[in-house]
């Protein structure tokens, strides 16, 4: 499957996605997200600090998942340069940020990935890597990634949309489930997911269609039971995430006739208790070319913080960033539905 960009699809344009989101809100008489926040006294949305730097080191990926909000895939060539990675390191060094969360694409396909991880761990910050699991088998040179992850004690966060092959492969591609299980076995073999090893393997669940997830705790128990009993693999925690109505998932919603009803579902599930814990309030997102965003979703919609080079990682201005207004749009209903959704799973425990 080609990326939307390679297909020259209209939804590869962030402006068109934002326009469609505004249109459906008008036609279905859905309260615009900003207005919803205003009525509850949460607008403008402000940061609570900057604890996490989430770095998108590139859109290149060995998979082409049907719901991918990054529109990542083998045909995407955007990769963070060594120079920009060094600017990220400098920002971490000087800012007091405690966690670096590396994402992509498949982060490991960035040629500077291992060097960057080593530099981060030497700074003493917590390092998380969003590994799609199958990348380990995409080329011989990635086969030793489990050992590399363990050596540097980085937290591995991996998507696995369901505990069976059928539903996983429908979303992420033929054979992905089997390869993911094989990769989990390798990670388990070096200690990941095992009690007392200190090596954390967390899985990410997102619904395989136009429905919301129901209960992280219950789903975690189901995943653990089935994956252990049927495949002899273990992991630490399951993070449940809501699919954002942008990019490829937006394309699915429109073509399957679920678009308006999905937005209505998100609005109906709006939970004010999620607002205090939204990830955009303590996380800063950096794009492959070094620009700053409130979150990875705003990044994909090109909703930059500020203008021009002032808001580039090389010019990190914590005073400004801590006082800024977080940019919101209709897609933000995705993070505030139900128990809330973030890169760390449910917001309201």
């Amino acid at each position, binding site marked *: 499957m080609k990326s939307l960009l390679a297909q020259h699809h209209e939804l590869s344009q962030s402006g068109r996605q934002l326009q469609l989101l505004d249109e459906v809100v008008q036609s279905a008489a859905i309260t615009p997200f900003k207005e919803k926040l205003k009525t509850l006294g949460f607008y403008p949305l402000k940061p609570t600090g900057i604890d996490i730097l989430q770095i998108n080191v590139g859109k290149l990926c060995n998979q082409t998942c049907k719901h991918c909000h990054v529109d990542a895939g083998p045909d995407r060539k955007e990769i963070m340069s060594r120079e920009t990675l060094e600017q990220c390191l400098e920002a971490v060094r000087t800012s007091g940020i405690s966690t670096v969360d590396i994402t992509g694409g498949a982060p490991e396909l960035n040629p500077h990935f291992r060097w960057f991880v080593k530099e981060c761990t030497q700074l003493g910050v917590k390092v998380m890597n969003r590994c799609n699991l199958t990348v380990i088998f995409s080329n011989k040179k990635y086969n030793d990634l489990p050992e590399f992850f363990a050596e540097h004690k980085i937290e591995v966060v991996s998507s696995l949309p*369901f505990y*069976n092959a059928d*539903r996983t492969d429908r979303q992420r591609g033929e054979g992905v489930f089997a390869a993911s299980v094989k990769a989990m076995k390798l990670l388990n073999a070096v200690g990941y997911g095992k009690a007392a090893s200190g090596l954390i393997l967390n899985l990410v669940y997102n619904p395989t269609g136009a429905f919301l997830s129901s209960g992280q705790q219950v789903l975690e128990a189901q995943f653990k039971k089935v994956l252990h009993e049927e495949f002899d693999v273990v992991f630490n925690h399951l993070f449940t995430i809501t699919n954002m109505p942008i990019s490829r998932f937006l394309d699915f919603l429109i073509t399957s006739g679920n678009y308006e009803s999905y937005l209505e579902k998100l609005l109906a599930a709006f939970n004010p208790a999620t607002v205090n814990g939204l990830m955009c309030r303590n996380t800063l997102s950096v794009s492959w070319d070094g620009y700053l965003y409130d979150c990875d979703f705003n990044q994909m919609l090109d909703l930059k913080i500020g203008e021009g080079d002032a808001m580039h990682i090389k010019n990190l201005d914590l005073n400004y960033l801590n006082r800024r207004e977080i940019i919101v749009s209709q897609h933000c209903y995705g993070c505030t539905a139900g128990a809330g959704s973030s890169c760390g799973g449910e917001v309201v425990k």
Partner: protein
Amino acid sequence: MKTYYNPEDLKKFSNIGEFDKPLADKFFSWYGDVFAEGALTAREKSLIALAVAHAVQCPYCIDAYSEDTLAKGCTEEQMMEAVHVAAAIRGGSSLVHATQMMNKVKELTM
């Protein structure tokens, strides 16, 4: 096209209180308690509801509990097995009356 069942009407379920709020409130409160975690899990109750929805042939309930069982992490196989349970009970409930028919036939015939 006019039909007796309109999917949009499912969203209006809570509006039944317009005509009798006290009774609707009692129903929704009881309904919420019925589906809460208890001796049975909410997931098990959702599968039962899906099966019953087929037994009583309620299209609104089938839509609602197809989505709810998906959200609760049920597989397609589990959902279809639940429907077969409903179908088996429906089929069996007809067939078990065959004993009455057989009794009558035996009573009437030499």
